[in-house]
């Protein structure tokens, strides 16, 4: 049986426009792969297709042999595939506690939901003191922490993270990336991390994929990618 995330000949439309064309790649179990590209390169669309929010036009994807095609997001969550989407994936009208509860709402093992909730709160202590506040009273960084904290309560195996750094201050970005790095080592998570902030992402990634206009331009280890002068200027912004 094939293990990890395997994407083959994936083509996805964004509305009527083709956003992703014929992409193939894989992410090994426990690996953190950064998907890098400019705005409009199709990164978010790719994640949306992997988590079942939109259907690919063509191609297939599987996670540890389980086909993702034709599945709804709520089914994929139950398989451990959790997507934290762009722009702080929290429900602003609900309290912090309710947003966290949402992550375990479908799980039967309530004792483990409680344990996971405690773990999330110990990773993000800022949330613990604000449980009863509405999520829209949180800062951008705290919302991102809440989104990740909620995702952890679902006990993910494959985490799809969409631009966790979006709109955050540099210090907060650093903290979020540190947490992601620590979490995946501690929990053995497989992570597909979509980022515009290439340098931060590559610092914690095992591998980087560079996406350009919906097609895969190149891939390699962070060192290889950073060493390429053309990539540095065109895609990594350094």
């Amino acid at each position, binding site marked *: 049986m094939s293990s990890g995330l395997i994407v083959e000949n994936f083509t996805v439309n964004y509305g009527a426009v083709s956003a992703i064309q014929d992409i193939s790649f894989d992410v090994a179990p426990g690996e953190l792969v950064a998907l890098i590209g400019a705005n409009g390169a199709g990164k978010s669309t790719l994640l949306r297709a992997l988590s079942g929010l939109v259907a690919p036009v063509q191609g297939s994807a599987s996670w540890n042999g389980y086909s993702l095609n034709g599945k709804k997001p709520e089914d994929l969550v139950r398989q451990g595939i959790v997507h934290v989407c762009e722009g702080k994936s929290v429900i602003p009208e*609900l309290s912090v506690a309710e947003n966290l509860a*949402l992550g375990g709402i479908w799980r039967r093992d309530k004792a483990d939901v409680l344990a996971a909730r405690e773990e999330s709160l110990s990773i993000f202590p800022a949330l613990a003191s604000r449980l009863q506040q509405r999520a*829209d009273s949180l800062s951008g960084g705290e919302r991102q922490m809440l989104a990740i904290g*909620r995702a952890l309560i679902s006990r993910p195996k494959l985490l799809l993270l969409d631009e966790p750094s979006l709109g955050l201050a540099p210090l907060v970005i650093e903290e979020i990336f540190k947490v992601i790095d620590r979490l995946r080592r501690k929990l053995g998570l497989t992570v597909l991390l979509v980022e515009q902030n290439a340098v931060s992402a590559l610092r914690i990634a095992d591998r980087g994929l560079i996406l350009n206009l919906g097609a895969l331009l190149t891939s390699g280890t962070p060192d290889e990618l950073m060493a390429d002068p053309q990539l540095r200027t065109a895609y990594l912004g350094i």
Partner: protein
Amino acid sequence: MFIDTLLIGISSGAIYSLMALSLVLVWRSTRIVNFAQSGQAVFSTYIGYEIAVRAHDYWISLPLAIIFGALLGSLVDLLFMRPLLRRVKDGPIAEIAPVIATLGLLGLLQSLLGLIWGNAFLQYASPLSAKGFTFGSHTVPFSPQNLFIVLASCAVLVIFGFIFKYTNLGLALRAASFQPEIAQLAGVRVSRVRNIGWAFAGATGALAGAVITPTATLSPNSLDLLFVSGFIAAVIGGLDSLVGAVVGGLVLGIGFSFILQYIAGSVTFLVGFIILMVVLLIRPRGIFGRDAGRHA
């Protein structure tokens, strides 16, 4: 006289509250203002009437009407709303199309009722007395049936208040209505949860119809005006708040009653709209409405 007027206000206010509650329930779970609600409610009331005629027992007909109301609500979602929303996904039309569709559905349901039962005024009687309670020599304009309506309103408020606030289903309902996509990504089966929301609202509408109708008559349009008042009450209350719906209903009922008593009957309905306008101007989110969330 003052007490009597107040009691009349409370009993009609409770009726508006029930209608308002059923609207708030659909709104809270789907973000759709359901204009077909009065049609669904009156349909369920006809079913209650039919059962009461055959079984000679109001108390058997009431729960069955409520169950029918829940099923009808669920079917409206499955056969009507879902296919519609599958076709119109985004743009301004996606916000307005479902609301217009509920208007169409209202016409459809009421014509259907006319075809089955005719347009005559029917009596759906309850064993509770419609005569006011008597204290000493004074009979107040508040009957056991009125009391029952008030209690039904309170029960709906307490039951759904509890469900929304303290259960996983309630959390899922709220999450699905605020941010369906994020709810889905968190594992909420959004379409199933919404369907339950439609069923809850349908059941509440049916309860409203079945407890109100014994105080009047039953015809395909008999709940329309009450529904308009219920709608005003819901908006006054903030459309999102169960407590707001009840308070809105009472404000309206008591307001109407005092105007009828001390000013003139002809202006009551006008005053309803004036109250609505004033509330919308001063507090567009309603007395109990919270920030964000009103779209349609």
